């Protein structure tokens, strides 16, 4: 409640002061009267020069019993001049208690009627000069209490906490206002930063465009006007003469050039690739790419790795190796891709040693690289992947068996099947399917009893392709047992391919509605591709 009061008061601000002034005025008047009266009460004796007269306003009754006489003013009764205040008040009270009329005491200094301020000053003067002394005896607790009460009822409530309040209020308000300002400043700063970022980006983009255009002509020139031998004979200065000299020192220009070269490299083949690589090296851009590996920012490192990869900068392989275990996904996956590509390691050691699980994106990229190597260079030893401690690498290895057509590995797969995990098995059986590997049938038949639905469906899909009469019998048995819809459909689909008559015979006799539905689905010509 205190805090609320403080805040309230502070909020009022200037109005408050204005009001205070007004109130103060009123207050002042009232308090003055009281001060005078209290002072006079203290002194029972006469005060030299001060006298009192009681004035009572009464038009009808006769107040002479109170020793009052009619005054010159119509409707007023006045008393004799009294010399001490107590008798004046006593008279006033008597009149009031008897007749109910309240009279007013007028003060006279040396016979002249004076205002309260004058009386106050007069008294002040006297007390300063020690001519006025308080009556010790008149001071009693009971008397003072009553005085306090009467005083209290006439004085306006003012805050008890005074100065202490003001300071606390100030601090809180300062805090509040400063928080407001802080918010505004923060938002302005953010907007400014964004604006600056946008401008800078725009500038960078336009520079990039300009550099692209600047670099295009020389590169095309070099590619088409000169033979490979010529290019290989040129030295660095000769190359540089083709390009705008100043820009070659600019990092952004180098970056743009490298990107152009890489882009062209991706789309071209044969002699052109070699030409591009020559340009790249002779201009010293390979040093620029290697330099990027020392950066602290992950995107700079990654772009360096990518450039090294695309341009076959074999000397940098050792430097890239340490990034193969990086925590940052982009650094790591590109480092591994680079090492797979240019380190000429048919044992794919970098993959085998991977600690982190291989994401599908990585598998997509690495498959392309490994396929390329397998076709154009040495055959990769995929079986080494099977021995990796990393499950995702083993799974990837099994995928490669079927993507690359490595049917000679199937024997190994069969041997490993029993101890493999479910994800591994799923890939293995797809390999058996891809190569129609009959030798795996025993394993498949046995695993049809699996509780894992995914594996079950996978095996059934394989049997659809390579199943033999034993498979048909086993699957038919399975149909008779309690299968869920999907499994039923898969098994019926397999049987439909292997032995449609057997299936038809059984389906027509089966009482299950689901079987009927599935059978109708299978024989529907429009759905033959589903």
């Amino acid at each position: 409640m205190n805090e609320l009061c403080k805040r309230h008061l502070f909020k009022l601000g200037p109005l408050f002061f204005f009001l205070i002034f007004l109130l103060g005025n009123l207050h002042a008047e009232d308090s003055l009267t009281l001060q005078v009266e209290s002072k006079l009460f203290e002194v029972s004796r006469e005060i030299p020069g001060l006298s009192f007269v009681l004035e009572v306003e009464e038009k009808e009754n006769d107040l002479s019993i109170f020793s009052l006489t009619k005054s010159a003013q119509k409707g007023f009764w006045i008393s004799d001049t009294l010399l001490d205040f107590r008798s004046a008040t006593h008279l006033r009270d008597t009149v009031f208690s008897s007749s109910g009329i309240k009279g007013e005491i007028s003060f006279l200094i040396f016979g002249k009627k004076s205002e309260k301020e004058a009386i106050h000053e007069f008294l002040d003067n006297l007390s300063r000069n020690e001519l006025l002394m308080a009556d010790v005896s008149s001071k009693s607790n009971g008397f003072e209490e009553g005085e306090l009460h009467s005083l209290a009822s006439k004085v306006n409530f003012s805050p008890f906490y005074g100065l202490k309040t003001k300071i606390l209020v100030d601090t809180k308000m300062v805090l509040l206002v400063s928080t407001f300002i802080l918010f505004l400043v923060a938002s302005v700063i953010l907007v400014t930063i964004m604006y600056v970022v946008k401008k800078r980006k725009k500038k960078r983009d336009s520079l990039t465009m300009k550099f692209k255009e600047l670099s295009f002509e020389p590169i095309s020139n070099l590619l088409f006007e000169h033979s490979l031998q010529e290019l290989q004979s040129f030295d660095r200065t000769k190359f540089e003469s083709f390009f705008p000299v100043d820009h070659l020192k600019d990092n952004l220009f180098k970056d743009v050039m490298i990107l152009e070269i890489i882009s062209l490299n991706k789309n071209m083949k044969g002699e052109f690739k070699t030409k591009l690589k020559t340009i790249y090296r002779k201009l010293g851009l390979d040093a620029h790419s290697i330099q990027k590996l020392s950066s602290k920012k992950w995107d700079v490192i990654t772009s360096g790795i990518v450039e090294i990869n695309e341009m076959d900068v074999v000397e940098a392989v050792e430097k890239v190796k340490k990034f193969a275990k990086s925590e940052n996904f982009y650094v790591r996956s590109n480092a591994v891709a680079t090492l797979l590509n240019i380190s000429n390691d048919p044992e794919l050691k970098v993959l085998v040693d991977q600690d982190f699980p291989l994401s599908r994106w990585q598998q997509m990229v690495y498959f392309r690289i490994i396929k390329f190597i397998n076709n154009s260079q040495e055959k990769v030893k995929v079986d080494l992947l099977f021995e990796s401690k990393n499950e995702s690498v083993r799974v990837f290895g099994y995928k490669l068996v079927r993507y690359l057509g490595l049917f000679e590995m199937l024997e190994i797969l069969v041997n490993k099947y029993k101890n493999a995990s479910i994800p591994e098995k799923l890939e293995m059986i797809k390999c058996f399917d891809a190569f129609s590997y009959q030798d795996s049938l025993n394993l498949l038949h046995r695993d049809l009893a699996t509780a894992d639905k995914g594996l079950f469906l996978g095996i059934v899909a394989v049997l659809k392709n390579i199943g033999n009469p034993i498979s048909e019998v086993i699957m038919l048995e399975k149909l008779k047992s309690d299968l869920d819809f999907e499994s039923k459909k898969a098994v019926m689909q397999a049987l439909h391919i292997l032995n449609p008559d057997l299936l038809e015979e059984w389906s027509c006799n089966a009482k299950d509605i689901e079987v009927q539905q599935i059978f109708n689905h299978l024989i529907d010509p429009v759905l033959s591709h589903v």
Partner: protein
Amino acid sequence: MYNLLLDILVEIFGILFLVYSFSVISFYLIMTVLSALEMRDHLKKNKFADYRDVITSPVTPGISVIAPAYNEGQNIVQNAKSLLTLHYGKFEVIIVNDGSKDDTLEKMVESFSLVKTDYAYYKHVETGKIRGVYKSTNPSFAKLTLVDKENGGKADALNAGINLAANEILACIDVDCILSSDSLTRMVRPFMEETNRKVIAVGGVIGVANNCQVKDGTVTEYRVPDTLLGRFQVIEYFRAFLMGRMAWTRINGLMLISGAFGFFNKELVLKVGGYFPKTVGEDMELVVRMRRYMEETGQKYKVGFVPDPLCWTEVPESENILSKQRNRWMRGTIETLQLHQKVKLNPKYGVLGMVSYPYWSVFEKGGPVIEMTGFLYTLLMIFTGDISALYFVGLFCLMYVFSVMISAFSILFEGVAYNNYKDRSDLNKLMKTVLLEPFLIHPKIVLWGLKGHWHFIKGKGGWGEMIRTGFKKAEDKKKIDIPIQL
């Protein structure tokens, strides 16, 4: 006595509004910083994404695109055709005709040579009555499946599609959205890139297609809508989608994926039981339920988000329709929050329970209520002559300036990230909208939100009639413009 009570109430309210305003401001400041950081990282990562293998690689997952359709006869054939020509390898398109009263079904059957088949499938999720499953006799349209069913609402239609989906990723989209040809390849990347966590869903961004140059079902040039409401929605798209959702993604607290363009892991969707048809906020409800499941089973997961502009739609430019949409969004929010109260401030649910849920509850759901109360409070204060109203007016001024700053930031944000809105006059129009929004639009939004609360309490449901004007608008306008230019 009563005076004292009133005084206390007044002061408490004053403090509450102060706390609320400060919280809103703080949240927005944090959001801008988080979203800026996330966007910077995203743009850097984009540079290294090589999409050339995605379409042809055997490692790439298959996608089942599900698009519910209700009374879309005018454009359904065009929309289906554009879906079928998306640049992707292994995918299928399932159109669900949710009991349309117009010629949606007939148009489809005719254009794609569809016939009813004896398709047998398992109903993982209970749905309304299915009248038939159609496939095409033309092998060019082998990817297309049409499900005809009785009307049951969007969630029900989606569930029907999910039952038939054959691939491991679901793409739930609104049939009249324009999708860019590489949208599938880009949206599938978060699913494929993650190594340590399971990506359960990926949300996308839906741009405003009104007044854009749209030719043959693709956005070719970005312009800003003509109406104030339209432009406001463009700003909202910058602020809420680009900035807001990016910020949530950074702390893995994204609780809402647009129903018009969302990708999900099918297996998980089936595990949690598909969409819940009894709510109008089915898109949000599903995401919350999927997140809850992952938290409850203690699995590490992530909800991804791709802010690249891949999908656009025509936003409502008439107050009537927009109000119904906002009303529905509010009801959906309230329903979802109510359904998943268990999550509230429960540390077991991680970011979802401790940050996302309270935020949605207080600021999204409670926002209109608190703002309206604050407004009435200020009016009351002014009328009773309590001068502390000066302080509230000051607060309102602060909020205005602040909201202008944030909106301006979001425009710059888009400019840095994608810079699709290049036209100078368009940007000026957007700035004007930013200045006017707090006065002209925001109060309406608050009112519509309150209406949503009211309708929720009354128990009113349904979608309301949302009229589609079709994308012809921009093309028609062009035809009118040309003679004048001559």
